[in-house]
């Protein structure tokens, strides 16, 4: 199973409902910057680069595990922004548009490579890379072990986790980026958690609710 070819821009899809409540001001600024880039304003383009390049790199790297390809993805995404800024109609949040391009470019860069580590959406347990008999571990170690487990999820699951928890995008935005129904997004993230559950149980402790 692999990713299908996707349309380049979520802009072309259905109008996106309410964007994330946080970051509205940042989104407004991004809309202004994109409009200025459409008028070939180089300074606005460089401001967008400053805001998004490292985020796009991190997103691409966490999907691809390839530093060189991820750097290429950044330049590809910025090129697409420069070329297509005039077509950005503001129906989606700028971050949705930009990460939609980033996802498309990353998957293109990965085409022909094995896209998955572990199972696809099936809820199989992700092995704890450093299993511990201890019921509870300190916060730092818990974080590291969870991160190692997150890295072993499928690409589809990793992209939802990244977009939801790192980029702060809501499920509607993620569905627009991934070109799939909202319920699919929710299913993917729940399958991801299902895989992590044994580890979470060990790390948080049985009956961790206080």
């Amino acid at each position: 199973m692999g990713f299908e070819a996707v349309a380049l821009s979520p802009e072309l899809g259905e109008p996106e409902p309410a964007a994330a409540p946080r970051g509205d001001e940042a989104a407004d600024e991004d809309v202004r910057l994109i409009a200025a880039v459409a008028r070939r304003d180089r300074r606005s383009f460089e401001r967008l680069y400053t805001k998004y390049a490292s985020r796009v790199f991190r997103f691409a790297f966490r999907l691809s595990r390839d530093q060189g390809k991820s750097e290429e993805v950044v330049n590809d995404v910025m090129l697409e922004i420069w070329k297509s800024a005039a077509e950005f109609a503001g129906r989606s949040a700028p971050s949705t548009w930009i990460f939609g391009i980033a996802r498309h470019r990353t998957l293109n860069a990965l085409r022909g490579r094995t896209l998955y580590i572990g199972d696809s959406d099936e809820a199989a347990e992700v092995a704890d890379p450093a299993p511990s008999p201890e019921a509870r571990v300190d916060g730092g170690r818990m974080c590291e072990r969870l991160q190692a487990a997150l890295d072993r999820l499928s690409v589809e699951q990793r992209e939802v986790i990244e977009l939801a928890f790192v980029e702060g995008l809501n499920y509607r935005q993620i569905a627009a980026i991934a070109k799939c129904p909202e319920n699919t997004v929710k299913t993917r993230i729940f399958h991801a958690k299902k895989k992590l559950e044994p580890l979470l149980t060990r790390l948080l402790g049985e009956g961790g609710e206080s």
Partner: protein
Amino acid sequence: MNRDEVRRNLPWYAAGSLAPEEAAAVEAELARSPDLRRELKEWQAIESAAAAPRAGEPEFRGHVAQAWARIEADERTERRVQARAPLAELGAWLRNTWLAMPVGGRVALAVQLALILAMGATFELSQRAESGFRTLAGSASTTPAGPRLSVAFEPTATEAQLRAVLAGIDAEIIAGPTPEQLYTIELHGRSASAEAALRQLRASRGVVRFAARDGE
């Protein structure tokens, strides 16, 4: 919103990206359900781990200059493609027209093209053959229609006198003058003979200074 829907929104509640009404529904359910509170803790642990910096993950080392270089390279390619576009379009149109044509039509067109090329080649060859002389008056001809004579007129002769003399022997100027003020005239079929024309020309004093067979 039922409990299952609320539960499916928990990850985005943990991330703080739910719309206010959705967040309120989650909070109402959280207040009632210890299971949901435990699950929220799991999502919060995942959210913390995902958002935290990763040990050993490479830093982004790119620079905006690289993006500009990529853009400029793309624009150069675009300009080259656009420069070739009209020729490519013509080529595509010709190819498509040719392919859309029935076989009989293709043969007819090929024959027509061959004829046009042959006519063009014939015309070009005739032009080259003519390039040996320069026409001053009358129509030039590759094959002489009659005998040709070399004539020098008196500088004082008028145009009317010249016309009268040439009409008298049914001739026309076809080349000249040379640096020596010689003209080549051609006799038409009605002329009795080159000799008779020569005699008549030589008799035209005050108008003709010199007359001889062409090449003599």
